[in-house]
C-alpha cells in the first residue's frame, strides 16, 4: 500500500458516521453508495449501457435514473471504447464518472482507454492531471452466461501500474470500497461478482469508506492461511466451518484489494499458520495466486512455510456453458476443504 493511500483513507475514516445498520443486498449497497455519492458531490455521474430506464443489466442502478435524471444517469451506446474514452476525458476535466461495464469481459474492448490512457495520464503529465475514474465490472461465472460473459479478468488489470483493482465480497465492502474509489485520485476498477448481487449483509446507513489496499481477516485460525478474493472468500469461510468439525483451524483472509495488495496481512498470517492456500476464480496459472505465493516466498514468511503453497484457481479453459462443467471449472467449497486437508497432512 502506498503511503498516500494510507493517509487518504485514514482521513476519510475519521469522517465516518455511526449510522444505523440494516441488511441490504450487495446490489442495493452499491446503488446506495452511488446515490449517496451523487447527493454529496454534484461532480459524480453514472454512465453505462442500459443503466437508465432499464436499471442496468443486473438492476444495480435501479431507479437512480428516475431520482437523478438523464444528465447524471447516462445511457451510453454499445461501444465500450467510446464510453471509456468519454469517462476518462470527463474524469480528467473535473468530473467524477462511474462507468458501468455491462460485463467485465467487455473491458477487453476498452483496453486502450483503460491501460494506455487512464492508467498512464498522471505519470505522463507529471502529476498535472489525474484520472479519478471509477469503473464497475460485473464479473465471474456461475450464471450460465458462457465463455464470453463469465470471466474473471481482474489479474490482467492488476498487472498495470497506475490502476487500482478491488473485489468486494460483502455488501458492506461493496458500498465502502465504491465510496473510497470515488475519493481516490486514480482510476479504480471494481470487480463485482455477479453471484453476489443478491447476497445480503449488514450495511451501515450514510457515508463510510473501506480502505483500498487493506485485506480483512474474516476468520482467525492457526492451522492454515486461506487467502481468497471475491466470492472465494465466502466459499473459504464455508469451507473453514466444515474444516472446524475436523479439527482444522483455518484463517481466512479476504484480500478485498488486489492492487495495491496487503502484503503485511498475508505475511503475518503465514508466520502464524505456516501454510498457505490461495483461492481465486481467475485462471490459475499466471494469476493472483502466483503473486500471493511470491509474497510468501520473497518475504520473511518464507522461513515459516511448512508445506508447499497450494493455488486453487480457475481451470485452464474457456468457461463452459454446461452448468456442471461451469462449476467444475472454478474452485468450490469441497475443493477448498480438500486442499486444506492436504496441506495439513490429512487424508480423506
Amino acid at each position, binding site marked *: 500500500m502506498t503511503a498516500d493511500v494510507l493517509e487518504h483513507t485514514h482521513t476519510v475514516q475519521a469522517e465516518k458516521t455511526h449510522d444505523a445498520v440494516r441488511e441490504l443486498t450487495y446490489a442495493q449497497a452499491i446503488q446506495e453508495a452511488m446515490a449517496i455519492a451523487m447527493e454529496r458531490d454534484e461532480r459524480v455521474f453514472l454512465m453505462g449501457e442500459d443503466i437508465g430506464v432499464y436499471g442496468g443489466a443486473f438492476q444495480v442502478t435501479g431507479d437512480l435514473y428516475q431520482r437523478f435524471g438523464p444528465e447524471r444517469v447516462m445511457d451510453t451506446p454499445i461501444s465500450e471504447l467510446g464510453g471509456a474514452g468519454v469517462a476518462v476525458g470527463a474524469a480528467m476535466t473535473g468530473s467524477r464518472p462511474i462507468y458501468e461495464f455491462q460485463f467485465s469481459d467487455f473491458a477487453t474492448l476498452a483496453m486502450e482507454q483503460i491501460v494506455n490512457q487512464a492508467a498512464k495520464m498522471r505519470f505522463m503529465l507529471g502529476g498535472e492531471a489525474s484520472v479519478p475514474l471509477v469503473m464497475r465490472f460485473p464479473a465471474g461465472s456461475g450464471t450460465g452466461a458462457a465463455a464470453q460473459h463469465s470471466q474473471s479478468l481482474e489479474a490482467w488489470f492488476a498487472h498495470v501500474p497506475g490502476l487500482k483493482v478491488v473485489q468486494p465480497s460483502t455488501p458492506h465492502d461493496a458500498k465502502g470500497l465504491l465510496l473510497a474509489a470515488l475519493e481516490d485520485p486514480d482510476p479504480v476498477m471494481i470487480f463485482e461478482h455477479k453471484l453476489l448481487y443478491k447476497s445480503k449483509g449488514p450495511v451501515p446507513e450514510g457515508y463510510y469508506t473501506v480502505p483500498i489496499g487493506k485485506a480483512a481477516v474474516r476468520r482467525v485460525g492457526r492451522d492454515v492461511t486461506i487467502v481468497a478474493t471475491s466470492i472465494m472468500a465466502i466459499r473459504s469461510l464455508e469451507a473453514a466451518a466444515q474444516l472446524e468439525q475436523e479439527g482444522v483451524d483455518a484463517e481466512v483472509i479476504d484480500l478485498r484489494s488486489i492492487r495495491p495488495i496487503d502484503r503485511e496481512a498475508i505475511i503475518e498470517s503465514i508466520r502464524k499458520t*505456516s501454510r498457505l492456500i490461495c483461492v481465486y476464480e481467475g485462471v490459475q496459472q499466471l494469476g493472483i495466486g502466483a503473486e500471493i505465493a511470491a509474497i510468501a516466498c520473497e518475504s520473511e514468511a*518464507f*522461513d*515459516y*512455510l*511448512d*508445506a508447499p503453497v497450494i493455488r486453487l484457481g480457475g481451470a485452464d479453459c474457456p468457461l463452459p456453458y454446461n452448468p456442471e462443467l461451469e462449476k467444475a471449472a472454478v474452485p468450490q467449497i469441497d475443493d477448498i476443504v480438500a486442499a486444506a486437508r492436504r496441506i495439513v*497432512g490429512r487424508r480423506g
Partner: protein
Amino acid sequence: MPTEVILPRVDMDMTEGMIAAWHVDEGDEVREGMLIFEIETSKATMEIDAPASGIIRQINAPVGESVPVGRAVAWIYAAGEALVDHRERGGAAVAGGASMHPEEATQGQTQTKTPQTYATEAYEHAAPSDQNPHAADDVASTDGPEPLRATPAARRLAREHELRLVEIAGSGPHGRVAAQDVLRAAMLEEIPGAASNSAPHTRLHSITLRKGSGDPLVLLHGFAAESNSWRPFSQAVARLGGTEAGMLAVDLPAHGKSPAEAAGSLEEMVAALEQTLLDAGIERCHLVGHSFGGALALATSAQASRLEVRSLALLAPAGLGPESNGAFLRGLTDATRRSSLVPWLRQLFADPARLDEGFVATAWQQLESPEVRERLAMVADTFFPDGTQMLDLRHLLNDLTMPVRVLWGQQDRILPVRHADGLPGHIAVHRFTGVGHLPYVEAEAEVARVVVQNMASAMAVNTSARVAIR
C-alpha cells in the same frame, strides 16, 4: 587407482569449507600425513594432511573456493600412473598417454571448472538416476550433498536448535522433513550428549516420599502429571501401616523435572527408569503405575533385566486397549489459561466436586509453560496419536509371576474400565464404583489398602518375581 583427496568434515554442522591455502602444487610428491592444504569453515581454519603418498594431480578447487564436504579436491597418483578423467562418466576415458601431456590435461581441467560446474556436478552425483558405479569414485563418500527435502520452517527450526537436517527422519511426502519432525528431534536432543542411539544413561528426577526399610514402593504418575501428585496417597499408605517400605515417586521422561530425551519410545523409558532406580541403589522394588505410568510400570515389570519388580499395582493403566479420551489429551496440552484447563481436569473425577483448588494449582503449575505443553503434546502424539493408544501391552501380563493387581474406577472417562475385562486369570482386578480416572485420589484409602496387601503377598510368597520373557 588414484587416491582422492576430499574436503573432510571437521566439525559437526559443517556443510562446506573454503580452500584457504594449498601447500603443494600439482606434480609435487607428497608423503602420507604431510600437510597439503588448509580449509576455512565458519568456525575455524584446519590443516589437512595427505591421505596417501604419491604425486598430487588434478587439483580442482582453487584457493578461495567453497567446496561441499566430501568432494574430491585433488587426487594422489602413483608415479607413472595415467591420469583418470574424473568428469567422464564412462570411467574409461583416460586423459593421459601419448596423445596429451598430463600437465596439459590437468591444467585444462582446473581452469575450466567454474562454481556452476561444481554445483551441477554435485547435484548430478547425488541424483538417484545415477547408476554409474564410477560416480562413487568422483565423490568421496555419502557425505556429498543429497537431495534433502525439508520445508523452510523445518530448516529455520533446525538452524535455531542447531540440528542437522540430514539426521532427522522426515514424516512428509518423500521423506520431507517438516517443522514437527525437527521439534521432535529437538526434544530428544534436549540434553547434550544424549543422542537416542547412544546407551541410555538418562537420569529421571525422583522424590523420596518416605524413607523406610526393605524393598521400596516406586510410584509412577500418569500423562501430564508429576511426582508430587503422589504425596497425599503416600501419606494414606503411611497411615495404614503394615509396611515400612520407603516410598519414591519418579517423574516420567518429559514430565516434571525429568529430561525429555527418553520420551521417544516405551523401551527408552523402561531403560531410563531402570537405570535411575539402579543408580539410586534400588535393585528390587514394588511398582505402582497410574495411567501412562501404568504402561511404563507394566513394561518395566516385564522387560527390565537388572531390576526385580516384586509386586505390581496398575491403576487405570494405559496399554490394555486402543481407546482413550483424545479430546482430554488435546485439551490438557492446548489449554493456554487456567480457566480452559479446569473443564478438562473435571473429566478426571467421577465426582467433579472433588476437583479442588489445590489440584488445579498443581496441574497448572506444570502446564502453564508453553514449552512443557509442547513437549507433552509430542509425547501424546507419539503414544496416543488421534486419541488412539499405540501401546498394546496386554500380552505382557501373561508371563508376569509377581502379584499383579489392576485397579480401575467404574466412571473412568479417560481410559475405559472395560480395558480391565478379559485379563489373564492370575491378575486380580478391582473395580471401584463412584470413582473416575484417579482411583488413588477418589478411593485413596481403599487403593492404599490394596497396594499394601499386594506388597505383603509378594513378601509372603517370597518368590523370585523375575520375568522370563525376552
